[in-house]
């Protein structure tokens, strides 16, 4: 390969690499989001009132 060919190939590889790194960063963010959604889903599937202190009915009036 001549020098010009090497540099041109390098330029295209740089474009490819930057786009791939960007997609990788997005994928990592998506993975974090999925993890958080699962945590939230776990919280919602716990029955209501669990863990709350028991309350006695208070007379009104």
């Amino acid at each position, binding site marked *: 390969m*001549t020098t010009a060919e090497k540099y*041109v190939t390098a*330029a*295209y590889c740089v474009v490819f690499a930057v786009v791939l790194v960007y997609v990788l960063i*997005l994928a990592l*963010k998506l993975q974090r989001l999925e993890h*958080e959604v699962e945590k939230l889903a776990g919280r919602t599937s716990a029955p209501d009132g669990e863990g709350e202190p028991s309350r006695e009915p208070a007379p009104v009036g």
Partner: protein
Amino acid sequence: MSAAAATIRPVGRTSRIPLPALAAASLVLVTGALALVFFVAPNDANQGFSQRIFYFHVSIAITAYACFAGAAWKAFLHLWKREPRADLESYVCVHQGLIFGTLVLLTGSIWAKISWGHWWLWSEDQLVLFLVLFLFYCAYFMLRFSLEPGPQRANLSAVYALFGIVLVPVSFAAIRLAKNLIHPVVFTLHGPNFGGWILVTYCVAQVAMLVLAYTLYRLELGGKRLDQRVRDLKEVLV
């Protein structure tokens, strides 16, 4: 729980073109462009093989301008019509523009090395313009991240994005004017004759870059909206 869930902001309306279709189109177009660049387009008479960098360098530059223009448009919609999603869309456009702007600087630098033996050329208008815009839009992120999320951040970001699009032609004029002061000799960058396969290759590369940018924009926007929804959910559930 259903009443609480009703207060969570809905995801923005889905655009007409589904994201997988966009991604597939990007793949086909970028592959097609690469094939044309390396196997079909003829060598330029003046610059030889190194001229092939321009197919992507120029199309990436125009895509970056399109991103900045899109950001300014969304910013204008935010300020004028108070569209609720415009701020986030403007931000993602600026982000895309900055990424493509960085690619312009990198590919332009490589071209400068091949042609003139230096990694940087002050005589090259487009490169200097992108350097100025790069500094400007980096400051956009500094501005945005030193404000709490809210209407003030959205307003200031929108106004700054509008300044940016005005800066593009003004800076370009300034850089042309500065040539007389710094470099009396004017170097021309784009010398190739735009005919035949060169034109076809360039057009395919340009469309490929625009579709790629739009795909990445939709991808990032979807991720950010999902992030916003998760935050809202957390606030409701905690």
